[in-house]
C-alpha cells in the first residue's frame, strides 16, 4: 500500500483545516460558514486517520467515527438554528444577527 512521509498527510490535513478556517472568517453567509466548519472537521478527521495509519492501529479510525457522529449532530442542530434565524430575521447574514453583543 501507500508508502509516503508522514508529513505529507499531516500537512494536507493542516492545509485543508486552514482553508476551512479562512472561509469561516471571511464568509458571512451562515450556510457557508457551516460548510467551512464541516471542512475543518473533515480535516481534523484526516489528521487522525494519518496518525492511526502511522502505527497501524484502529484508534485513529475510531476517532474519525466519533468525529463523524459529532458532525452529523452538529449539522442537524446547526441547520435547525439557521432555519429559525432565517424565519425570524429573513436573512442568513451572520452580521445582521448580532443582537447578542455585550
Amino acid at each position, binding site marked *: 500500500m501507500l508508502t509516503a512521509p508522514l508529513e505529507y498527510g499531516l500537512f494536507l490535513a493542516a492545509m485543508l483545516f486552514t482553508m476551512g478556517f479562512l472561509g469561516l472568517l471571511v464568509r458571512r453567509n451562515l450556510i457557508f460558514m457551516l460548510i467551512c466548519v464541516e471542512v475543518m472537521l473533515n480535516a481534523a478527521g484526516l489528521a487522525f486517520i494519518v496518525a492511526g495509519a502511522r502505527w497501524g492501529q484502529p484508534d485513529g479510525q475510531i476517532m474519525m467515527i466519533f468525529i463523524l457522529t459529532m458532525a452529523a449532530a452538529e449539522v442537524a442542530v446547526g441547520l435547525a438554528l439557521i432555519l429559525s434565524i432565517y424565519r425570524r430575521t429573513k436573512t442568513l447574514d451572520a452580521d445582521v444577527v448580532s443582537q*447578542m453583543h455585550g
Partner: protein
Amino acid sequence: MNLLWLIPVLPLTAFLILALFGRRLPKALSTVVGCAFMGASGILAIIIALQFLLNLETTPSYTWSSGTWFTVGDFSPEFAFHLDGLSMLMTLVITLIGFLIFLFSTAYMATDEDISRFFAYMNLFAFSMLTLVLADNFLLLLLGWEGVGLCSYLLIGFWYTNPENGYAARKAFITTRIGAVGLILATVLVFRATGTLNIEEVLLIAGNWVSGNAIVTAIAVLLLLAALGKSAQLPLQVWLPDAMAGPTPTSALIHAATMVTAGVYLIARTHVIFELAPMVMTAVAIIGTATMLIAGSSALIQRDIKRVLAYSTISQIGYMFMALGVGAWTAAMFHFYTHAVFKALLFLGAGAIITAVHHKQDMFEMGGLRKVIPGVFYPFLLGCLSLAAVPFITSGFYSKDLILWKAYTSTEGNILFVVAGLVGAFITAIYTFRMVFITFNGKQHTEVDHKPGPIMVGVLAILGIGSVLAGFVETPHVLGSIHLFSDMLQYSVQDVTMNKVDYSQEWVLMGISTLLVVAGTGYAWMKYGKGAEAAPTMSPLNRFLYNGWDFDSAYQHFILNPYASFCRAIGIDIIDLLYKLVGLIARFFNLVLSRAQDGFVRHYALGIAFGTILVIYLFIS
C-alpha cells in the same frame, strides 16, 4: 395540660396551610381553615385553663418542654412553654378574643381578594403572640416578640398597593425596632449577669440582688425601652396612630387587644427586676401618666374614628403603665384584660361602621347612624361606657378604679398619679362620648346601603355582653370585695406592699371619678349631643393636638434631619475613594471587554483562533 404546646401550634399549622396552599384553596375553604384552627386553639385554652385553675393551689405553674433548643458552650436554652396565672390570662385573651376577631374578619374581609393571605398573617400573629406569652426563657420570648412585630408590619401594610400603607408599616416596624434593640441588649445583659435565660431562674437569682445596683437598673431600663416601643408609650408612641392603615380586625387584634400590651406583659413578667430598681419604677409610672394625658388630649380632636380609638389605646396603656409603675401588677393586668375586651369591641364596631358608610373613616361624614344600624350602635355604646368607665355596670370602671386605688395606696404611689388619672378619666369620658355623639346622633351625612350581617352583629353582641360582665371578677373592697382575678395571679405576681388606709376612702375616690365621668359626658353632650354639622376649623392649639402633640415633626426636625445631615457629612470620605477606585477599574475593564462582545460570530471565531494559535505555538516552542 401536656397538650399546652398545641395551643400555639394550631395557628401555626393554619398559617403553614394557608401560606403554602392559600392561593390554590377556594376562598371559602381558606376562611374556614383560618378560623377553625384558632377556634380549636381557643377551646383547648379553655380546657387547659379549667384544669389549671382547679389545681392552682397544688401546681401554681406548669412547664412543657420539647428539650434543648440548641447548645452553644454552656448555654442551652430550652424550647419550652411556661404556664402560670399570668401567661394563662394572656393565652385566654389572645385565643378567645382572637377567635372572635377572626370570626368577625370572615365577614369583614369576605370581599377581599387576598383573604387567604390575611388569615395566614393573622394566624402567624396568633402563633407568635402565644409563643411570646408562653415563652419559658428570654430567647423564646424574643422570637415571639420579633414574630409579632413582623406580623404587625405585614398587616399594617396589608393593602400594599397604597404607598402610604407601606410607609405606615415601615414606621411601625422601625419605631418598635428601637424597643427590640432594648430587649436584645437586656437578654444579653441578663445572661451575662445570671448565666441563664430561663425567666423563672433569672427572677429567683435576681431576688438575691441588692436593690438599685447598676446591673439591675440597666436591665430594667432596657426592658422598659422594649416595652415602650411595643406598647406605644412616650417617646415611641408615634407609630400606633399610623398603624390604623391596616385592616380594622388587625387594628382590633394587634393594635388594641394583644400585641401593644406585650410591653405591659413583659414588665409584669419581670416585675422582680423592676422592684429592685425603684428609679425605673418611678420612670414607668411617670411615662405612663404622661402618655395617658398626651394621647388622651390628642384623641379629643381627631376626626378619623380609628385614630380616636388608636389614641385612646395609647392612653389606656398609659394607665396600665401607671399601674405597673406603682407596683400594682394585678391592676395593670386587670386593666389589660378588660381593655382587651372593650377595645376589641370598639375597633370591630368601628369596622362595622366603616363598612356601612362606604369605607369612610371621618366621623364628621357619618352622623345619625343610631337608627340605621342599631345592631352596631348598642354593642358599640356598651364598649364606650366601658372605655369611659361609667360606674358600677362596666368592666372599665372596675379596672380603672383599681388602678387609681392602688396608685393612691401603694408605697410606690403618689397622690399626683391619682390626680392625673382622674384628669385622664375626665378626658376619656369627653372623647369617648364625642365619638359616640358625632357618629350616631344628628343628621345622617352618608347613605348606608351595606348593613352589617349576622356574624358581625353577633360578634359585637358577644363582646358587648363581655365588656359588661368582664369586670365582675374583681371588685373593690367596699363593693362586694370579689378577688377571683388577683387570686388567679397571686402565684405569678405579688403586688408591692400597700399603705394601710381606711377602705372607706375608696368611696371618695369612686365618687370623684364618677363625678368626673358624668361631667365629661355632660360636656360632650352639650357640645356634640345634636351631632356635628361640619368639621370644625382648627385653631393652632387644636392643630397641635390633632397632630399628636407634633411628635412626628419634632422627630423629623430634631432627630431625623440632623441624622441625615450627619450621614451626608461623613459620607464624603477619603477611604471611600479607594473603594470607588476598585469600582472604577472594574468599570473600565467592563467597558473594554464588553466591546469584544459585539455579537459578530466571525469576530468570536477570530478570537478563538488567535487563542488556539497561541497555545499551539507555546506547545511547539
